[in-house]
């Protein structure tokens, strides 16, 4: 294939990625968009296979078959609650692949005894560092989400300082390799090892509920790593696709940080939630909570005209989304309206809650973003909070001493009646008391969310 044709076909593939991502912007066209982007990928793969440099196909065929089978198996076996882990793992693989391509390019120069000119040296070191950090960082994020590792931040004294030293050492090795222009093994091995170590160090101090930011950021890194690899092998489609993915991750991490009213620096280096029972925040001593039985609440629900459900990650953990839909269907059959208020950080990754509810066949047009539904709570007869905590804590509005002060929250306390489903009075991720539980119009429904919902369903049916 002539070089110009190769270039044109890579361009076609890049354009298909752009159209595909654009079409992912609306629920009606999203599936088609994903398919278009897939066609772009297929074209890129076919063009690469036809590249004049490619002479042997045995290893390629074996690798592609193994990778495709493992990928498809994973895609169809994964539970929707485990989506964050899956995306984390795939991010890691993408980053790892980019790192390996960078490393192979280094070996090629090393074995041929060729020099590495400074521009190539710079981008090669970057692809190794970013790829390595993405690989191990994603694996740690995966282990935390999969609960193979404690979700709490892992901290040790002078953590940020020692991380900084590792980072500077990595840069020093990169500088050494770049400045010699001759491929040297010691800085190469050292740099790879330190980049992999750095990925681990950067993610271990970050707590479970901050994972939405971390996954978005690692997603971005995997794109930038691919882009850097594109610089190394001088391939435009890698650069364009990598930059597109890189920007998507950056935007999503920014949205997530805004939704928690925290800076990216605070999420990455603050070890938020490491100390349980922090000082500050309102003391709830002397106040009591009221609890309600499913029987009593069912009567209220059966005659409610407008119900808003606030789902949190606790609902997903209890696997209660199907019961939620069943209850909503019953209320709607009796003439009520049911809406869902989704906080941006309700799940373990951006938009996670929407996918979980979609899986339970809840139509996406019933799901409302926080800002769109917050004004509706005042005329809501019943608000049902299932497994959410910090995102409905009114302290975020007025208590300047609260660690979550300033975080945008869902106005669950504005409803005529608010019922919170919860296992116990344990605190949420921020480790603080929730004022909502003690409010005059709030009742607690203690117990496993799934069982409580089943009781509610049975009672509403009879009401």
């Amino acid at each position: 294939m002539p070089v110009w044709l190769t270039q044109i076909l890579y361009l076609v593939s890049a354009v298909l990625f752009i159209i595909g991502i654009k079409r992912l912007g609306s629920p009606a066209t999203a599936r088609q968009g994903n398919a278009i982007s897939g066609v772009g990928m297929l074209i890129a793969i076919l063009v690469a296979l036809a590249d004049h440099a490619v002479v042997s196909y045995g290893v390629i065929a074996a690798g592609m078959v193994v990778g495709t089978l493992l990928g498809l198996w994973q895609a169809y076996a994964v539970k929707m609650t485990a989506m964050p882990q899956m995306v984390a793992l795939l991010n890691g693989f993408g980053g790892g692949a980019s790192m390996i391509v960078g490393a192979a390019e280094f070996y090629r120069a090393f074995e041929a005894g060729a020099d590495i000119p400074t521009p190539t040296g710079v981008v090669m070191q970057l692809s190794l560092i970013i790829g390595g950090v993405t690989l191990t960082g994603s694996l740690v994020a995966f282990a935390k989400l999969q609960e193979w590792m404690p979700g709490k931040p892992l901290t040790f004294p002078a953590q940020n300082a020692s991380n900084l030293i590792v980072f500077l050492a990595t840069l020093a090795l990169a500088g050494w390799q770049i400045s010699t222009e001759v491929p040297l093994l010691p800085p190469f091995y050292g740099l790879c090892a330190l980049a992999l170590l750095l990925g681990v160090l950067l993610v271990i101090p970050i707590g479970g509920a901050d994972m939405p930011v971390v996954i978005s950021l690692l997603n971005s890194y995997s794109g930038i790593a691919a882009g850097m690899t594109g610089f190394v092998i001088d391939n435009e489609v890698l650069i364009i696709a990598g930059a597109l993915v890189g920007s998507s991750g950056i935007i999503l991490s920014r949205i997530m940080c805004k939704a928690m009213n925290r800076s990216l620096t605070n999420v990455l280096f603050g070890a938020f939630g490491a100390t349980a029972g922090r000082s500050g925040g309102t003391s709830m001593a002397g106040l009591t909570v009221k609890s309600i039985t499913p029987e009593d609440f069912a009567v209220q629900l059966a005659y409610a005209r407008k119900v808003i459900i606030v789902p949190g990650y606790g609902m997903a953990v209890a696997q209660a989304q199907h019961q939620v839909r069943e209850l909503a269907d019953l209320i709607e059959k009796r003439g009520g309206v049911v809406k869902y208020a989704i906080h941006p950080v309700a799940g373990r990754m951006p938009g996670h809650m929407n996918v979980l509810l979609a899986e339970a066949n809840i139509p996406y047009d019933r799901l409302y973003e926080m800002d769109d539904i917050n004004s509706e709570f005042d005329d809501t007869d019943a608000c049902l909070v299932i497994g959410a905590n910090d995102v409905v804590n009114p302290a975020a509005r007025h208590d300047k001493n609260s660690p979550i002060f300033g975080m945008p929250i869902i106005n669950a306390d504005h409803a005529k009646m608010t019922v919170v489903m919860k296992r116990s009075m344990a605190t949420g991720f921020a480790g603080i008391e929730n004022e909502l539980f003690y409010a005059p119009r709030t009742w607690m429904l203690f117990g496993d969310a799934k069982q409580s919902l089943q009781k509610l369903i049975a009672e509403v049916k009879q009401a």
Partner: protein
Amino acid sequence: MTTEALIMAIVIFTLSTFLGVELIGRVPPTLHTPLMSGANAVSGITIVGALIIAGSDLGWISTYLGFVAIVLAMMNVAGGYAVTDRMLGMFKSGPEEKR
């Protein structure tokens, strides 16, 4: 890579980043998870590099590394597109909107 080629690549990278920001800024929050896994699949484009490395007969180290890179990138590609499609298949609008 010459300095000129590097600058050209930086130009492409920068413009694509701005394009990405424009494209993704318009995606509603309800689609953020499929967007992430879809974007994740696109980052598997590094497969192109892996294929060229593995197929070029550059000695056993490069071939071996290329094989591992192909497996990883291909999992990213196949898994990413398949799971995104699976998720998007679940998104349905309400019955009153169907006609």
